[in-house]
């Protein structure tokens, strides 16, 4: 039985994992880089070990340092969270070698699903639908042309080792094939050191729908239904919901069965996610498997009534699943909004900095998972995800109304953030109607970038308040500060224009 867990991660997910461990009476160990000495996961864990400088390559990705901390602390298990080392087969293997339980799947499952071509072949063998295209990697331009003739244009050329849109090329007409193929290979080679590519049918108006699965060490695999994740910007998810507004009960069940088949094909163990691409006629195709906990796992927790981190730990302990597929049900509707430290008005530039004030939404149906506190300096080295708002309603309408209410209550000052942008997504027609694809953000740019109107009263009150604050500060300013103000003025006598991006 696991007694002490080292969490090899940071941010909200580290805090979230520690919470469930604490509820189970399990001791927790945090690890931290230079930049994270004051991060919430360090304050919140029972123990904390320093594992290196701020860049993640030297700390959160440093397997040796993390294993050393595990040994020193006497942790008997490691939870990798998401990102960082969570889908690193070598890390899973190294944990096994060190006699430490890796709370996640085997190195085999990770590496099989980590390589797109291998995953694709494995899925085809298991009878899971994949996007029409080449079975393996392309050997010649002739093969490419033959494939394209079979499946028809448009197609997507993808790097086998790819990710993040690199080594990808969309081909819409015959003339582009050769040049696109060459470009994709060369980009893949320089990005991943591997120029293997394959070809898939391009789905025009796709939905991104994923299935949560749980698999124990005794061969039991269940799915916990889907999550609709089509609201994305540059392949980064922003808002997720469950149930998906487009699935029918029949399709939901079919896809669930496909997800279970996919997991069984790699002898999966633990929590995982099967991502599908779904077209407007509800044809679905395996896209990839994430062999770890997802950022958006809480919406599944809410509608199914389960704590996925606890399930992961039970599975890692070798216990059989207590949940039965036939007993699982989706209760009501849940929506997750990801709060990023970024500036939507400035091309979504990331915005690290010091949080001066937070108003968190409370009350009925609202859950918040976060990693910031007042006075916390959001480091510039890591992901800009700083909080997640998870809202439940008895149906989709109530969930939407409640999300709006909660977003309006949510205030983070000191750092730029996307809270207003999230609010506008929730108000957008396409979203309200539940009729949106992965192109939603691009297609609704005008609406989403619009600011709420402020009438004259509202403006005037803002003006008066700023003036009153200024006058109060002027009164309180010490002589020393007044000098500083004056010097500042002198600096300004030479006219300058300050350019920003």
């Amino acid at each position, binding site marked *: 039985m696991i007694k002490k867990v080292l969490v090899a991660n940071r941010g909200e997910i580290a805090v979230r994992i520690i919470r469930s461990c604490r509820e189970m009476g399990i001791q927790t160990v945090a690890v931290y880089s230079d930049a994270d000495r004051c991060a919430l996961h360090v304050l919140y864990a029972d123990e904390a070990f320093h594992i290196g400088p701020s860049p993640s390559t030297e700390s959160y990705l440093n397997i040796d340092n993390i294993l050393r901390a595990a040994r020193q602390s006497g942790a008997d298990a490691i939870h990798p969270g998401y990102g960082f080392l969570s889908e690193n087969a070598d890390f899973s293997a190294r944990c096994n070698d060190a006699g430490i339980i890796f709370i996640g799947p085997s190195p085999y499952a990770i590496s099989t699903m980590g390589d797109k071509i291998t995953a694709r072949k494995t899925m085809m063998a298991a009878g899971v639908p994949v996007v029409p295209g080449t079975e393996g990697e392309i050997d010649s331009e002739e093969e490419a042309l033959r494939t394209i003739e079979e499946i028809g244009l448009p197609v997507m050329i993808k790097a086998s080792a790819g990710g993040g849109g690199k080594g990808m090329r969309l081909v819409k007409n015959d003339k582009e094939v050769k040049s696109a193929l060459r470009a994709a290979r060369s980009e893949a080679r320089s990005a991943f050191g591997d120029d293997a590519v394959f070809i898939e049918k391009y789905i025009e108006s796709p939905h991104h729908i994923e299935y949560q699965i749980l698999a124990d060490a005794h061969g039991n695999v269940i799915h916990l239904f889907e999550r609709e994740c089509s609201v994305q910007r540059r392949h980064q998810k922003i808002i997720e919901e469950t149930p998906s507004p487009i699935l029918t009960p029949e399709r939901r069940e079919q896809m669930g069965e496909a997800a279970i088949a996919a997991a069984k094909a790699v002898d999966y163990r633990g929590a995982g996610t099967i991502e599908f691409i779904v077209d407007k006629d509800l044809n679905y195709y395996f896209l990839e498997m994430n062999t770890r906990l997802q950022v958006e796992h809480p919406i599944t927790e809410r509608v199914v009534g389960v704590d996925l981190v606890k399930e992961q730990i039970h599975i890692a302990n070798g216990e059989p699943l207590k949940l039965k597929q036939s007993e699982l049900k989706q209760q009501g509707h849940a929506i997750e909004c990801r709060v990023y*430290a*970024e*500036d939507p008005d*400035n091309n979504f*530039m*990331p*915005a*690290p*900095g010091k949080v*001066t*004030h937070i108003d968190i939404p409370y009350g009925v149906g609202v859950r918040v998972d976060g990693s910031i506190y007042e006075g916390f300096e959001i480091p*510039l*080295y*890591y*992901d*800009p995800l700083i909080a997640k708002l998870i809202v439940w309603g008895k149906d989709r309408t109530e969930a939407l109304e409640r999300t709006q209410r909660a977003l*309006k209550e949510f*205030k983070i*000052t*000191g750092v*730029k953030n996307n809270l*207003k942008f999230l609010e506008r997504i929730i108000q957008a027609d396409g979203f309200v109607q539940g009729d949106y694809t992965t192109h939603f953000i691009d297609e609704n740019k005008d609406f989403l970038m619009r*600011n*709420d109107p*402020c009438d*004259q*009263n*509202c*403006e*005037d*009150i*803002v*003006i*008066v*308040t*700023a*003036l*009153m*604050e*200024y006058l*109060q*500060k*002027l009164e309180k*300013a010490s002589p020393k500060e007044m000098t500083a*103000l004056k010097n*500042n*003025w002198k600096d*300004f*006598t*030479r*006219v*300058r*224009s*300050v*350019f*920003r*991006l």
Partner: protein
Amino acid sequence: MSYQVKLKDRIAHVEILSRQKEQLLVSVDGKEYALDFVKIGKGSYSILYQNKSFNVELIPINGIKKYDVNTFKNSFEVEIIDAESKYLASRKQTQDSDDEAVITSPIPGKVVKLFVEKGDTVEAGQTVLVISAMKMESEFKAPKAGVVSAVNVSEGQSVDSRQELVIIDFH
């Protein structure tokens, strides 16, 4: 006494007519407001106007004259115009162009590449430096041709938002 306050393109003339405890009487561009005006925390105010409840939060920007302002619905940048600001504005109007450009980053980050040294001549649009934050890189370019008159940072250095990084002289 009358004050000038700038919000977006608007410059409002504000006069404080009276203040008794929470009761504040002001005029903004000639329109009178009787406000129930209370400070409830650092930079945080509750205002009742005709029984409507407004919450306003202010975060100062570099000093006491400029604020990022949040209301329930909106965010603004507001600036108090005093003698200094007026002087600067008037000087600006009487000149054809600015003397120099100060390159700053709107966000904190790390200088990952620096392409210029003091004394270098730069073309309009030329990339001067690259700042990285949260795994995203941003290029900063010279707005016009000129000569680099100051470089206040070096590669690998962390910088604050609005910190003066590079100054380009146009003369």
